[in-house]
């Protein structure tokens, strides 16, 4: 392995490859900030350029774009509540409130350091555990996925403020409903499409996020304009540029980062899961383990709440490389595009990759780490300037948010129907927000809903309609037992508090 690391370092540390990582990170950050243009689009746009290089350099460039896009997505999540990338939706839950409190610079710094730490730790996990983890990922079956999705839904507790639990639950069910629109994956039967071809593929996740977050946020800002508490927020905009993280915040991050990186990496390794689910799970898990005092801060600008999804989504990016490099199975849409590019180079990923093409295997792993360092060096000094976006007067900022939302959704699907659907959902979401219905549970359920139903039905199919699959496999039973324990713990704590 040492020999492999040295090969990787030698390849990754050439001038050309360092330059490629830098270009990739910068380009990715810009693309990631634009709603609708996620890492998948960014990498797809890079493919024709990479064919001019050797495979290792091409992949290094694409890896840089990948990380840059995820970081760029966090920036728009924190500053505008308009997640540029699905994997950074959970970042907005605490990042945006923090920015609204005049701590935008700090929020971006926490995101940058957490991303860096998450990426670094996951690169280490990848280095030592890639081959063995690929076998573990293949042992996951439908019942295990179903149990994992149920575990993910326990994160809902994080979004239900006092007396709002039912409303949060209601939004979960609504999210699951939205996820059920379109062609049923197991039977090809269409549901809730009303004979409209545009709905056959279901509703896009980015569309729902843009509608419920960015657009409805823009509309809600109008309502807050005359709010006296808003005036206080405006005053604190003078502190936008401060990126100093104090000792107390650092201590919190030291605890959050290792556990979130493990969750993120492991979820990233599972085919089909990816950074979005990883960030939601890490957010929910983090809330379950922090103190009661910190729990209260979740959703209102918690350091742990921001650090956890940021660490996890970067760790998941590295994790998704495991099945791609070791088995030739893409763990996410983005790695699927990269796999296509690899095949275009004439490189066949799989168990023999690090024997036949060690320079590619190891240089990607090493360049991931280098990419993280470069991302940090590039972005940290820019944070005070990026944070100034919040100081843009609202009469320009709101049209710009609407403009980017509409353009972003259009360039994602090239379909006007998606824009009209987004506007419709945004209007409904704004009214629901007015009556204190929280939006994050809807997004959480929408992400997990499709996979949850699909795996539930597949499990029932495999077990001839019997529900025994819930306890037949040890792994399924363990995940479900953990879920039940978490729920019981929450109920116990609530009763204890009441008494």
């Amino acid at each position, binding site marked *: 392995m040492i020999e492999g690391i040295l090969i990787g370092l030698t390849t990754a540390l050439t001038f050309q490859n360092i330059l490629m990582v830098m270009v990739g990170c910068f380009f990715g950050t810009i693309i990631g900030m634009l709603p609708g243009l996620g890492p998948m689009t960014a990498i797809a746009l890079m493919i024709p350029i990479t064919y001019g290089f050797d495979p290792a350099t091409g992949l290094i460039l694409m890896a840089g774009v990948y990380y840059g896009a995820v970081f760029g997505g966090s920036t728009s999540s924190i500053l505008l509540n308009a997640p540029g990338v699905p994997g950074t939706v959970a970042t907005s839950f605490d990042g945006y409130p923090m920015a609204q409190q005049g701590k935008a610079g700090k929020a971006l710094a926490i995101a940058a350091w957490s991303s860096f730490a998450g990426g670094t730790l996951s690169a280490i996990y990848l280095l030592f555990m890639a081959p063995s983890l690929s076998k573990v990922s293949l042992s996951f079956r439908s019942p295990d996925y179903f149990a994992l999705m149920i575990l993910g839904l326990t994160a809902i507790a994080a979004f239900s403020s006092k007396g709002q639990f039912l409303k949060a639950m209601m939004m979960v069910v609504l999210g699951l409903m939205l996820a059920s629109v379109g062609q049923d994956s*197991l039977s090809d039967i269409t549901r809730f499409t009303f004979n409209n071809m545009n709905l056959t593929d279901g509703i896009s996740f980015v569309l729902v996020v843009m509608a419920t977050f960015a657009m409805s946020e823009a509309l809600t800002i109008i309502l807050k304009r005359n709010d006296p508490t808003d005036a206080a927020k405006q005053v604190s905009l003078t502190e936008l540029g401060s990126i100093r993280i104090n000792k107390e915040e650092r201590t919190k991050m030291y605890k959050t980062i290792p556990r979130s990186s493990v969750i993120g990496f492991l979820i990233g390794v599972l085919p089909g899961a990816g950074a979005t689910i990883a960030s939601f799970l890490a957010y929910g898990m983090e809330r379950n383990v922090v103190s009661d005092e910190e729990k209260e801060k979740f959703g209102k600008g918690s350091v742990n709440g921001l650090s956890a999804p940021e660490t996890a989504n970067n760790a998941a990016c590295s994790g998704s490389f495991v099945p791609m490099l070791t088995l030739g199975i893409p763990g996410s849409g983005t790695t699927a595009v990269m796999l296509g590019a690899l095949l275009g180079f004439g490189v066949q990923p799989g168990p023999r990759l690090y024997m036949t093409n060690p320079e590619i295997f190891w240089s990607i792993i090493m360049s991931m780490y280098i990419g993280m360092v470069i991302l940090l060096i590039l972005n940290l000094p820019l944070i005070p300037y990026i944070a100034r976006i919040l100081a843009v007067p609202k009469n320009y900022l709101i049209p710009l948010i609407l403009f980017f939302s509409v353009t972003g959704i259009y360039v994602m699907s090239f379909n006007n129907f998606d824009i009209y659907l987004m506007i419709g959902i945004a209007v409904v979401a704004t009214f629901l927000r007015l009556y204190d219905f929280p939006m994050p549970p809807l997004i959480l359920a929408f992400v997990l809903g499709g996979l949850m139903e699909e795996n539930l039905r597949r499990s029932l199919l495999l077990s001839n309609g019997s529900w025994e699959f819930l306890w037949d496999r040890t792994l399924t039973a363990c995940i479900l037992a953990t879920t039940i324990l978490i729920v019981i713990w929450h109920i116990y704590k609530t009763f204890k508090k009441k008494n």
Partner: protein
Amino acid sequence: MKNVQKQKRANKSLPFFFRDEFKVSLVIILTSIALLITTFTFDIVPPILNRGIQPATFPKALLVLIIVMTLLIYYLATKNPWKVEKKLPRSFFLTLSSFVIFVVVSKTLDFFLAISALSIFVSYCWGEKRLFYLLLVGIIFPIIVFIFFETILGLRFPPGIITNIYYS
């Protein structure tokens, strides 16, 4: 605090069908019932192929859950009324109506023209009356973005009056 209590009291004094809790719950329940009826029109997987649940079962269960939870939320709201929002500002409705303008313009004239109209209209509603800044937000900025998407990223926008001029 006193204002909130006053608002709550004011809301409580209204007949139940005028209260926001009732109106919101009614809309949700009626929509759910309509969707529930729709689920009975979904195709059915033949029994020989079906070893689990039908495609309609999961949404049916969710819709029943929504109805039950809405009733519960309404019941709780009768005991503890929702905080009534102050009258919604004019700019809120103007922004909503700008979406209608956007849809009409993008369908009939041009996608980019519609985006420009949306940006100018929203900016104007928000109090920007200076022509230069309105032009900046509504025309110059969309042009820059259009060129960026079109030339650098190679993405093509739908045909329309303005885009046709550019493409021709």
